[in-house]
């Protein structure tokens, strides 16, 4: 096959076929269009204000590594005026997170950004290794998910940032939409919209957004490969099958047959967003009585899970039945280990939206 010429510069050899458009382009043009599309996502959604302090949720994996690189590039090229930070959560998983954190530490040097690492151990007094030794491998992802979400917000508060950006890409978002289709089947449409929202925020909480919302996974990986970026990839030892979920496989097969499928699915998820925003506004928000974090109940999920762990009834935080059993044992003891009280940097009252994730 004769080498093809780039469809954009009509000069260099094409190295990549874009999944979104089928266009065949060279390496330099690819960098430019990929970065420009992320820039367009950022400006069209008005994600940032000059002077914003922005934390990049960094795991050492491909998405957040590319995000850090692209955010640095765009901040300089277009003069966003952002102060960028790397924020990593150390779940305390030996042989997994300790290795990926080494990657993040190298990124800190390579991108010259301040790095904050906040550990589950520091925040909750429990590593994931210790939690798994208590709860086994059945519900450990519930603990990890709840703890990570709160840890990111708390790490961001410690950094006094205005905004957290995460590396969720178009494939991730389309996958969530697909998984939520079963909620629609059950008539539970209300949860669908949030997952496609590019930015979720309450009035005075730390905003979260996804600058890669429209970026295909293939292009993120190709960007990392062509730029020789240093990233870490392995399976979490506690959920080795997570990445092989049915929805992901189904999505990749759809994409192989019709590359626009991913964007089409995201758009179909967005169609529900307006309705969801109305609902979010109506939801009465409160904060956790014990730790001050946003919560829709007296106690936030993390405090409930932590109390169960501390009282030797680890599963109490997972089901309502478990919670009742815990309550029957009497009130929480005074010396119970708790999460430090949460304050957002501005000191404003917390009016937050709890998002389905």
């Amino acid at each position, binding site marked *: 096959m004769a080498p*093809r010429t780039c469809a954009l510069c009509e000069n260099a050899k094409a190295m990549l076929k874009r999944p979104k458009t089928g266009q065949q382009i060279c390496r330099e043009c690819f960098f430019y269009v990929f970065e420009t599309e992320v820039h367009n996502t950022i400006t069209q959604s008005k994600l940032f204000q000059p002077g914003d302090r922005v934390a990049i949720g960094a795991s050492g994996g491909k998405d957040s*590594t590319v995000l850090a690189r692209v955010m640095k590039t765009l901040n300089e090229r277009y003069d966003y005026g952002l102060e960028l930070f790397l924020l990593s959560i150390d779940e305390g998983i030996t042989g997994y997170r300790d290795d990926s954190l080494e990657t993040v530490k190298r990124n800190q040097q390579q991108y010259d950004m301040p790095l904050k690492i906040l550990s589950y151990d520091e925040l909750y007094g429990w590593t994931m290794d210790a939690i798994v030794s208590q709860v086994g491998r059945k519900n450990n992802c519930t603990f990890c998910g709840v703890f990570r979400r709160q840890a990111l917000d708390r790490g961001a508060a410690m950094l006094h940032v205005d905004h957290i950006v995460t590396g969720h890409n178009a494939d991730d978002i389309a996958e969530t939409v697909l998984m939520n289709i079963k909620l629609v089947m059950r008539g539970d449409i209300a949860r669908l919209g949030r997952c496609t929202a590019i930015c979720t925020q309450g009035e005075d909480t730390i905003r979260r957004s996804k600058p890669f919302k429209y970026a295909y996974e293939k292009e993120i990986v190709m960007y990392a490969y062509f730029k020789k970026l240093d990233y870490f990839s392995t399976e979490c030892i506690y959920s080795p099958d997570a990445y092989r979920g049915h929805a992901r496989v189904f999505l990749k097969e759809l994409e192989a047959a019709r590359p626009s499928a991913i964007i089409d699915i995201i758009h179909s998820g967005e169609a529900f967003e307006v309705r969801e925003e109305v609902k979010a506004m109506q939801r009465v928000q409160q904060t956790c009585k014990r730790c001050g974090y946003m919560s829709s109940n007296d106690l936030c999920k993390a405090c409930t899970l932590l109390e169960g762990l501390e009282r030797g009834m680890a599963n109490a935080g997972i089901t309502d039945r478990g919670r009742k059993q815990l309550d029957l044992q009497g009130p929480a003891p005074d010396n119970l280990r708790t999460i430090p009280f949460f304050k957002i940097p501005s000191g404003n009252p917390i009016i937050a939206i709890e998002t389905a994730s």
Partner: protein
Amino acid sequence: MITISVKVEFSGGLELLFSNQRSHTVTIPSTDPATSKPTNLQNLIFHLRDNLLKERVGLFVENDTVRPGILVLVNDTDWELEGEGDYVLKDGDEIVFISTLHGG
């Protein structure tokens, strides 16, 4: 038998299926004995599956090609521009397989 030698690299977590070794030099016949046609990339994929793959075959090959979600590069070019499995291998080629399915 005339053979060719190609450099094969696995990354993005795919190396875990291949003895956790990223880089391999693979020597294969220059023609496919079954069809007498020049060895192509699909022949190489089958060769890797049959000779180098240590575990979980389904995570590498599916429907006679690499599983969706695995990117393939031929001398740093997206294999979709090179005819995918029909690409005829040349001695000294560098073939890279990258999984996109591992966490970010």
